[in-house]
């Protein structure tokens, strides 16, 4: 199966659908918050907005067990290498959601110590704007991420290893 295929054959498509259904519905976020957006992230996980309904309840404290890295808050130059190492420690099918203007593009802080956007150090899948984004905004971002996962083809990467680098 070395030749790459555009539309996966039937069997693999079904396998893709099943795997992505599982990955989509049990996204465990990584419990790391930086600034104000972290409080809105916790409010989203709290009683009223409750992302546990989508299976994202377990805020794993260790990067090894998390698969969604929500960068919630301002990324400073001093914190950037730490974030990069946390991203590398996460096992592979991982996604990153940049929450809030600070993570998306530096936000209201054009200053000497702020990294203007987390996508300079981490490949971001979904950008959620807002300062801080309301819980509804964050849940919308998470749903967009779930659709993106549903469209991905994990089996393609298993059979064609260098496909992953072209992800």
């Amino acid at each position, binding site marked *: 199966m070395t030749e790459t295929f555009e539309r996966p054959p039937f069997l693999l498509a079904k396998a893709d659908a099943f795997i992505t259904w599982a990955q989509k519905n049990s996204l465990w976020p990584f*419990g*790391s*918050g*930086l*600034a*104000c957006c*972290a*409080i*809105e992230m*916790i*409010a989203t996980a*709290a*009683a*009223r907005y409750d992302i546990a309904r989508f299976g994202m309840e377990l*805020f794993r*404290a260790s990067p090894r067990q998390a698969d969604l890295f929500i960068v919630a*808050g*301002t990324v*400073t130059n*001093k*914190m950037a290498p*730490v974030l990069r190492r*946390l991203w590398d420690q996460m096992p592979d099918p991982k996604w990153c959601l940049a929450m809030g203007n600070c993570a998306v593009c530096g936000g*209201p*802080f*054009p*200053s*000497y*110590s*702020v990294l203007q956007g987390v996508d300079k150090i981490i490949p971001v899948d979904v950008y959620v704007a807002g*300062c*801080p984004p*309301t819980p509804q905004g964050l849940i919308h971002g998470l749903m967009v991420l779930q659709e993106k996962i549903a469209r991905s083809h994990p089996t393609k990467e298993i059979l064609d290893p260098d496909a992953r680098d072209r992800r």
Partner: protein
Amino acid sequence: MAFNEIELNMGPQHPSTHGVLRLKLAVDNEVVVRVEPVLGYLHRGMEKLWESLTYVQVVPLTDRLDYLASLSNNLAYVLTVEKLAGIEVPRRARYIRIVLAELQRLASHLAWAGFMANDIGAMSVLLYGFEAREEILDLFEAYCGARLTVHGIRIGGVVQDLDAALVSRIRTVLSRIPKRLADIRALLDENRIWKERTVGIGPITAADAIDLGLTGPALRASGVAWDMRKDVPYSSYDEIDFEVPLGRNGDCYDRYLVRLEEICQSIRIVGQALDGLPEGEHMAKVPRALRIPPAEAYHAIEAPKGVLGFTIRSNGTDKPERVKMRSPSFVNLQSLEHMCVGCLFPDVVGILGSLDIVLGEIDK
């Protein structure tokens, strides 16, 4: 480093450091020998940024300092600018400011109760605290559209007037908080495990607390009766009567009790402020381009975390020459070392929770 000591790093990403604080701990089989907080992981260069913004543009940035109590930051900065420029705020605006600041104190203390309990293991209290806080955030959203970084207090007054519907809605929300507070207290107050984790942990005497610059509920837990709202009244707090709850031996349990008592006091204050709401407009006449002749002013208020003060020096233009902020969490964190040395490793988490620090305010 003695032979049997481990150098442990708590942070900068750690579930219970309330953000990006890094604690370098030297631990001799679970007994803490040295604590060295490392800061700067959230330093956004606020004070440099403020020097290139006009007085009015700085106000939304003060929301992002102590993001659990954004209205208190607004109030502190705005009062300093009004003192500098000699702006007289109408009495109705001062009363609305009291209502907003005390609602913000409620939200901040409820969030703190959740975080501290979660650090010591009682997960449900985090959810109860946040549920109560959501209702207050709904009030802010009804008042001016924002939940967390509210930006509701401006130079010269407040952004909106309190209409009757909002006043009655505030009263209904306030009437529900005592019941939620009773739930939290029922879960924790007389709980043997909770008391074992907090009574006698991280004590600090009144003298040490003053010498180390501790302020706010943490200081009052050591029995020091200092509340900026009483000692140096601002924004017509002197027309409202309320008590200042005090602790006795300044340990985690007293800090916990003092803050819960303050929640009850804040409910009383908002009630009185709503009853005595005077007539008048909610905003003073402030020139669009506010230019302030060269001068320097310092003003401090009682924020939920402690004494929050702003020093502003003006140079005649519409941009401040220098804005220096005295952040309570920054100074309170200095006494962490004093409280933690000699205690056990899990207690560092409890003490940090009882100090109620916010990293946005520490790193500026």
